[in-house]
C-alpha cells in the first residue's frame, strides 16, 4: 500500500491543488532615496502592479516634505507607511542614503518590514559603496546590492507587489 507521502507527491496529484487565491495582494511602498533611483522608480511606476505604490524621498525646494508622490505632491510619511504591509527603498550606489533613517524609524515603530535595494551597475569601490550601504545596513532587515535596475522589477514581481 502506498504511503500518504508517496501518494500525495505523485505528479498527477499536482492538479488537485486548491485553485484559490491564497493571499491578498500586499500593499508595498517603494521609495526612491536619490535622484537616479527616482528615475528607476518612475520607470517602474508605469507598469501594472497589484498593490505597489511608488514615491520619492528626494527633497527639493519645491517639495520640502519627507515623502512625495512622483507627481510632486507632498505625502504624509506616517500615513503612507502605516498603510503598508512592506516598504522597499531604492538607492543608487555612491549616493547618500541617510534619509532612510526616518523611514526606518516609522517602519520599526509600526512593525513593518523594511527592505533596502542598492543598484550598483558599475561595481563601485567599497569606500563609495559604503556611503550608501552603511545607513541602510543600520536600518533594513534585508539589504540587497544588485548590479542592474531590472532586479527591482524582478523582486517586486516575485513579491506580488
Amino acid at each position, binding site marked *: 500500500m*502506498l*504511503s*500518504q*507521502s*508517496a501518494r*500525495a*507527491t*505523485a*505528479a498527477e*496529484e*499536482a492538479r488537485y*491543488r486548491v485553485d484559490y487565491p*491564497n*493571499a491578498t495582494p500586499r500593499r508595498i511602498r517603494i521609495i526612491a532615496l536619490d535622484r537616479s533611483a527616482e528615475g528607476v522608480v518612475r520607470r517602474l511606476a508605469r507598469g501594472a502592479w497589484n498593490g505597489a505604490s511608488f514615491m520619492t524621498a528626494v527633497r527639493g525646494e519645491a517639495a520640502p516634505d519627507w515623502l512625495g508622490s512622483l507627481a510632486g505632491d507632498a505625502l504624509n510619511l506616517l500615513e503612507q507607511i502605516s498603510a503598508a504591509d*512592506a516598504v*522597499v527603498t531604492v538607492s543608487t550606489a555612491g549616493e547618500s542614503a541617510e534619509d532612510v533613517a526616518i523611514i526606518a524609524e516609522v517602519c520599526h515603530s509600526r512593525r513593518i*518590514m523594511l*527592505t533596502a535595494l542598492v543598484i550598483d551597475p558599475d561595481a563601485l569601490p*567599497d569606500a563609495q*559603496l*559604503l556611503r550608501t*550601504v*552603511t545607513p541602510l*545596513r*543600520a536600518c*533594513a*532587515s*534585508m*539589504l*540587497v*546590492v*544588485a*548590479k542592474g535596475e*531590472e*532586479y527591482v522589477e*524582478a*523582486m517586486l*514581481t*516575485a*513579491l*506580488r507587489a
Partner: protein
Amino acid sequence: MLRREQNDLLTQTGPGTPGGALFRSYWIPALLSEELPENECPPVRVKLLSERLLAFRDTQGRYGLIDEFCAHRGVSLWFGRNEENGLRCPYHGWKYDVTGQCLEVPSEPAESTFCQRVKLKSYPLVERGGILWTYMGDPARQPPLPEFEFALVPPAHRFVAKRIQESNWLQALEGGIDSSHVSWLHRGELNSDPLFKGSKGNQYNLDDARPVFEVVESPGGLYIGVRRNAENGNYYWRITPWVMPSFTMIPPRGDHPVHGHFWIPIDDHNCWTWSFDYHVRRALTETEVQAMRDGKSIYVQFVPGTFRPLANKDNDYLIDRPAQKAGRTYSGVWGIAMQDASLQESMGPIVDRTKENLVSTDNGIIMARHRMLKAIKGLEAGAAPPGVETAHHRVRSAAVVLAPDQPFIDGAKDALAVREGVAHATV
C-alpha cells in the same frame, strides 16, 4: 512568485530546453569515482539532464559516458560485457569504445567498414576529487575542469556522497540558499549533531532570533550573508556562496569540516543531491567519517545497495510524531538532510511557483532565479554564463565576527576566497 513560463525555463533541463542548455555549459558531477572502482568493472546506468547514459571504465582505465542503448536493436548496454577495451552488447556482439565509437559488428563481413559509421552519443568523463565529472554541452565550448576547493584537497581531507532526491533540482537548490529556515527546521540539530555542535557560532544563532540578511551579487553567483548580534556591538556573520548553477557551501562551525552541496537534475522530477565535507588543514578523523557514513549532518542512511535514503516518501520519512511533539526534532523527521528533502519533496515533483507568496527574506532565492533567467537569455545570445570560469569556483563560505560598520563583502573578503593552506574563517 514566478510566471509559469519562467518556472518552466528554470525547471526543465532536458535536451533542447533553454534550462538544459544552461546546465550543459558546465562540468557537472555524474557519479562517484568509487562506482567504477577498477578497469573492466561492471558498467553503471546514469541518467542526467533527462538523458539515459551508461558509464564504464575500459581495460586501460579510460572512462566513458555513452548512450545507454545499443545502436542495433536498442538493448541496454548495462548488460554488456566490459572486455578488451570496449563494451560488447551481449545480444549480437556489437562493441563500443569509451567514445561511443562502434568497433565491431560481428555479423558483417570481416573486411566491412560498417562499424565505422556507427557511433553512440558520448560525453567526456573525468575523475577529480572522488567524483567523475561530465560535460554535456557543445565540445567547442568545453570549459576547463572545475576547481572547487573540496575537489583539490588530498583525498583524506575529503568525504563525498550522493543521494537521490525525488523532486526537481530547483526546489533542492532553493533550500540550500534559504538561510532563514535553519533556525526553524534544524534548530534541534545545532547543538546535538556531531558535525555541527560545539561551536560558539551556534550560540549566536540561538541567542538572536531576528537575523538580518544581505544579498550581494558575485561574479559566479551570489553571496548570502546572515547577520546576528555578537558581543560588544559586533555582528556575527554567516556567509553562504552560491556558484551557478547549483554549488553552495554551508558556513563553517568551529573546527568541524565544511559542508557543501551540488544539485544535479536526473530528469525534471528527480535530482542528485551531492554532498561533500572537507577540511583544508587536516585529514578528516575516523569519528567524523563514521558520522558521515552513519547519516549524520548533511548525509543520510541508504536503502542497502542503493542511493535512495532509508527514510523516504514510501515510508513517510519515518516521521516521529512523539519526537515532533516533544520538540526533539522540529518537523518529526530525523536528520538534517531528510528534514530538508522531505519538505522539498512534499511540494510535488515540480512546485507550482505561480501560487507561492515570497517575502523579503527570500531575496536570495529571488536573486538566484533572476540571475539564472538572465544567464539563460545571455546564453541564447552566445554569452558564457557565470560559474563557468574556474576563478568563480575558488570561493569559500565563512563565519566571522565583524565590526558593525564593516560590510561582510569587504570585512570577509579574504575569508571568502580560497587561500592555499589557510583554514576557513570560522567561529
